[in-house]
């Protein structure tokens, strides 16, 4: 408890002192306190150098604590994290204790800093070949971690090693290898290695021997494989079936999905029948699990039943709701009850649904009433029974039940017209008040449709019209149509009504849909009333209960995903993954921006002229884009402001878009107060960057975030100090919460102007004019694989205002010269050597302003290590 005591002033200093203590016990206590502070969200990153001093301990408990700390803060302190690398490498070679070796490899993989990964490769390879299975199984997972940070490091070597580990003698190593391959496959979007019959039989051998989690991974991996022929599918089925008796529900669900997939590949109908017979009770047993697990199981069962209806055709009663089931379980059970209902069990089902409709939870009751309607629409021969069930419910006079029944009855009328109008009377008798728009619209629809058989239809509709202008659009539209129908059936009674209504709708309605519809009716009625009748009372498309039906290909994909999030949301896997989607959105936003600019000025003319062959110019040279710099978190919600308040989080990046410098920002309010009164200011800086406009940000509600762009000018007051690497801009922001100071790096490429192209002579002059000491050479290793030829590299640079002046090809590659100018007209020149094929790029730059050289190289590095 004491560890979580509130922060005191000087706590950090005190901890620092304790960390540097000579007594091991005191040191350990101090690290524990640091971890506690970290847990509650306090920023203890400043203690980094002091904590990692304790890493060189032989005490394994203390070591673990230090590792935990490093994992948490390495990201924000990458330079300091490198200091820890040596200790890690030493631990990874510890000769006597496999636990320490594994721990070192595991932790290094968790430090998600690209700088460290280079040092990770060698110990990781050793660990993958370690004698101890514990080290190997840890290392296998680590390959997936490495892939997540630097995919290019993994591509060939490591994937081959993983392939080899599939035949490891230890089942747990095989299982973790499979898990890593699955992860890589997910990240990559295509299979990490090609599976063949041989590798499949190897992992099948490990299946019965590994832990329950390993079994889930192996089964999930089997789903990604497509059997080559029927005997193979049958033999896989045979080896997987015993897993159905595992006590872990996740193993069972994964087994079910393997069987569901492989069943499609076998033709032996006896085998299929016996599998289906087996699966039924297995699925039902899942309902005995914990509530959350039941929910997942019900979602899976729903899909399995859609695919093979015969699996659960025997007993619908297991899906009856218990009084104390949580609401989310009840709603899923309802779905399956409707799905399984047929003429044999409909009486039982209706009896249950009626029971549910008298409970108190409004949502559950409504869904139950709705379910009765769905059964009616699904089973034509049971409609009478459904209707009488609904009538029983209506007679209870519970208002929301009756309203829901009105909606359901409208659907039944739609599906089976002119059969059940006699029940309209009951509806009116039991309805106290209609406050649900859908119910109201349904009621009005019924009135219009059957106005010739309802005696007081005119009066009823007239009554609804009184509040016409205040209704929601759904009701207004329905009322308009119903009145037209009434007029066509009883013209004498309702002429006044319809003219008034049309007039009101066309003159004073603000909703364009409503106005348009009124105009159409008006013209139709005034030009040809007979035609109007044909149109308005024309045949309606039939409705069916399709709330459950999924497209067959989507269903097959979801069956393969059984148990995963996609089956919960019933959406394809792409729609679930956050990372990919975010990238797509960013790309879209960017494209929209480009379009905006294109349509805003003269550039459009140029575009047409240049791409006359391709009128739309859609795919025109995507590499011509200016590099987009990813947003970076510059202020997090745990950082206190001047007055100690925290909760504002900001992501920012400088961008250059069409000749302008913009500051791309995202503000997120994680505090509990409304944030307003925004103001922002830049500190003086070397390049004179300043805000071109005041920060115009609306009030931000708690939890909300807002993206905005601020245009930046370079005419601000410059600072006389030389620029640092990277260029750091200090910013102050004020809002109703507090005042915050933070800093944001600016990529040098953003400052490069369009006029950076020098003639060959000018170039020569400057190049020779600069003495050699101001020459910088750097070799870039991490080139994005998308720049596969020299030309692509040149395109990328030119698109970002690094202009090609001259160049020549040599035997080994290409040497070219480029020129640039920044916003202050300072020139930086460079020579770029690209090997053929592209593997490394050597950049040599010369400039009269030596301080700019490292910035420039950093910029090129960014451009070439990210895809365009």
């Amino acid at each position, binding site marked *: 408890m004491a560890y979580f005591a509130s922060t005191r002033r000087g706590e950090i200093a005190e901890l620092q002192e304790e960390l540097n203590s000579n007594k091991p016990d005191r040191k350990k206590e101090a690290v524990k306190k640091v971890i506690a502070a970290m*847990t509650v969200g306090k920023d203890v990153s400043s203690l980094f150098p002091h904590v990692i001093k304790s890493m060189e301990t032989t005490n394994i408990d203390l070591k673990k604590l230090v590792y935990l700390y490093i994992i948490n803060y390495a990201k924000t302190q990458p330079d300091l994290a490198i200091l820890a690398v040596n200790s890690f490498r030493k631990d990874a070679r510890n000769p006597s204790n496999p636990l320490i070796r594994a721990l070192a490899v595991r932790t290094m993989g968790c430090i998600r800093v690209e700088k460290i990964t280079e040092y990770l490769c060698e110990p990781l390879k050793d660990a993958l070949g370690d004698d101890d299975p514990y080290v190997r199984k840890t290392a296998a997972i680590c390959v997936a971690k490495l892939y997540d940070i630097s995919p290019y490091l993994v591509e060939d070597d490591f994937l081959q090693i993983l392939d080899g580990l599939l035949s490891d003698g230890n089942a747990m190593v095989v299982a973790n290898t499979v898990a890593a391959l699955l992860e890589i496959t997910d990240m990559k979007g295509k299979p990490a290695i090609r599976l063949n019959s041989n590798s499949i039989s190897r992992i099948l051998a490990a299946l019965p021997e590994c832990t329950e989690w390993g079994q889930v*991974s192996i089964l999930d991996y089997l789903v990604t494989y497509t059997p080559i022929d029927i005997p193979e599918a049958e033999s896989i089925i045979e080896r997987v079936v015993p897993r159905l008796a595992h006590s872990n529900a*996740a193993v069972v669900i994964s087994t079910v999905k393997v069987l569901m997939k492989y069943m499609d590949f076998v033709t032996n109908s006896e085998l299929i029948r016996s599998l289906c017979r087996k699966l039924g009770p297995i699925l039902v047993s899942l309902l005995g699990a914990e509530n959350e697990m039941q929910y997942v199981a019900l979602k899976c069962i729903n899909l399995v039943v859609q695919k093979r209806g015969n699996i659960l055709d025997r007993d619908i009663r297991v899906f009856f709701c218990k009084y104390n089931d949580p609401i989310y379980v009840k709603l899923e059970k309802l779905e399956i009850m409707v799905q399984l209902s047929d003429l044999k069990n409909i009486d039982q089902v209706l009896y249950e649904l009626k029971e549910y409709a008298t409970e108190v939870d409004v949502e559950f009751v409504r869904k139950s009433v709705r379910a009765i309607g769905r059964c009616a629409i699904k089973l034509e021969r049971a409609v009478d029974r459904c209707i009488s069930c609904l009538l029983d419910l209506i007679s209870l006079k519970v208002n929301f039940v009756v309203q829901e029944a009105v909606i359901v009855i409208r659907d039944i009328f739609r599906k089976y017209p002119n059969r059940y109008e006699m029940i309209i009377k009951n509806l009116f008798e039991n309805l106290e008040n209609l406050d649900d728009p859908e119910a109201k619209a349904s009621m009005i629809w019924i009135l219009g449709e059957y106005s010739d058989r309802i005696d007081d239809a005119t009066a009823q509709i007239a009554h609804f019209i009184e509040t016409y202008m205040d209704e929601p659009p759904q009701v207004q539209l329905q009322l308009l149509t119903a009145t037209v129908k009434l007029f066509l059936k009883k013209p004498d009674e309702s002429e006044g009504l319809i003219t008034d209504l049309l007039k009101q709708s066309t003159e004073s309605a603000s909703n364009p849909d409503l106005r348009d519809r009124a105009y159409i009716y008006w013209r139709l009625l005034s030009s040809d009333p007979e035609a109007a009748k044909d149109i308005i009372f024309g045949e309606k498309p039939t409705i069916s209960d399709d709330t459950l039906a999924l497209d067959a290909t989507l269903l097959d994909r979801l069956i393969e995903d059984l148990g995963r999030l996609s089956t919960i949301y019933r959406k394809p896997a792409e729609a679930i993954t956050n990372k990919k989607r975010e990238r797509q959105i960013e790309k879209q936003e960017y494209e929209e921006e480009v379009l905006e600019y294109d349509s805003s000025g003269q550039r459009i003319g140029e575009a047409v002229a240049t791409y006359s062959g391709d009128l739309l110019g859609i795919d025109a040279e995507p590499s011509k884009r200016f590099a987009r710099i990813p947003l970076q978190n510059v202020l997090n919600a745990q950082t206190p402001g001047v007055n100690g308040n925290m909760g504002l989080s900001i992501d920012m990046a400088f961008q250059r878009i069409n000749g302008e410098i913009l500051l791309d920002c995202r503000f997120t309010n994680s505090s509990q107060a409304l944030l307003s009164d925004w103001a922002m200011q830049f500190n003086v800086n070397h390049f004179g960057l300043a805000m071109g406009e005041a920060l115009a940000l609306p009030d931000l509600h708690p939890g909300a975030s807002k993206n905005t762009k601020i245009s930046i000018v370079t005419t601000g007051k410059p600072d006389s100090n030389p620029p640092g690497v990277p260029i750091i801009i200090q910013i102050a922001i004020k809002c109703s919460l507090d005042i915050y100071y933070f800093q944001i790096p600016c990529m040098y490429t953003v400052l490069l102007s369009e006029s950076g192209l020098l003639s060959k002579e000018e170039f020569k002059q400057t190049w020779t004019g600069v003495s050699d000491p101001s020459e910088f050479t750097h070799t870039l290793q991490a080139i994005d694989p998308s720049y596969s030829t020299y030309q692509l590299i040149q395109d990328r640079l030119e698109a970002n205002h690094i202009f090609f002046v001259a160049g020549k090809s040599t035997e080994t590659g290409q040497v070219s010269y480029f020129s640039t100018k920044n916003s202050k007209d300072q020139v930086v020149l460079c020579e770029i050597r690209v090997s053929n094929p592209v593997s490394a790029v050597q950049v040599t730059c010369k400039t009269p302003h030596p301080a700019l050289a490292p910035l420039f190289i950093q910029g090129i590095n960014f451009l070439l290590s990210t895809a365009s």
Partner: protein
Amino acid sequence: MASALLFLNSRGEVLIYRSYRDDVSRTEVSQFCTQVVAAKEASEQPIVYLNGVHYIHTVQNNIFVVAAAASNINVAMILQFLYKAVEVFKAYFNGEFDENAIKKNYVLIYELLDEIMDFGLPQLTETEVLKQFITQGGLRKSIRDDQIQGALIQATGITSWRPDNIRHKNNEVYIDVIESLHVLVSSQGTVLRSEVQGQIMVKSQLSFMPECKFGMNDKLAMAGDGNSVLGDKGIAIDDIKFHQCVRLGKFDRDRSITFIPPDGVFELMTYRVTENVNLPFKLIPIVHEYDKNKIEISLKIKALFERNVFASNVVIKIPVPKNSGKTNIYAVTGKARLEPEQGAVVWRIRRFPGDSEYTLRGSVNLVPTTSDKPWSRPPVTIDFQVPMFTSSGLRVRFLRVIEKSNYKPTKWIRYITKAGSYQHRI
């Protein structure tokens, strides 16, 4: 897989936070804490989607155990893992898992979280094995390197649940057959659903590496082995699930149950029976509402098991509306009274002999209220335990233990049937 694990208290405060991947940030996670947990909306959905992050959670003793993920993860596996993780922590904290236990043991928890999950993928979760090398918090002071090596080899081996150096002075096995009876009866008295969820718990105190074979009166297994007693055909079991120590391949081939048990208490198997379920009681409840100010209750309960068996701790709850006032209740045996906090008339009978019948009668006066919301008439529920009785009729036929040192263990068997969700609608 999972990007982060969190333990929160019911106010949404973070007790433990362990990040496994950086596609979910701490800031994002805090939105779940404030907008869902603190806002008390978490009970409506076990899986919540919030600004690009999926939160999967379960609640144990008011502690929210949450996994956050940003990709299409296997929810079934993660949920199972969360349940298992809680089990592991309980084993470490002597059965306690609450805010205090967590705060007291947070260092140990972090160490365990590091071992039971890696990169969001579940790893070793066997408590017995973890205890061999996760010792933070002074469970054991120092371990020698060679001991660790042994523990690790065992942890990754085929019998990851059992160390091979176990010795017991007396070799004993206790078998408990525990059946939970789930019944739903309609207001007309017809049984809508009856199901036995059985559990066979084994406490094994056996030395070295014993090879066990377990047999019960399973219809399919007995048809196969041919030496069953004439007339006893066994019972039909809908579905069986086994502890991971049982060889599933062998069971699939000839329905024999063979295994090397973990040491201590474990759940050997669970099973489900829906055919020929014997209900121990028959209830006839009548709850009648008289013009909104009075309810009359009568309930007859009859024990259907044999005279020499007794049920114990029988508790029958007859729900009444919230606005119940004065009651007048008479029962032949046991104690019956209105318990307002339960919203029910509760009738407790300590000992209920077989083949007997009792009745309760009474009335409840209702206090007039302003709300005219109808009473939802929840079902009558009953709770009981009947020792030496199995609703399914399951019997253990044998347990053979074979060990190289050839000891003869002592075996103990108990049976008990308990009420699961036993509801009678009114």
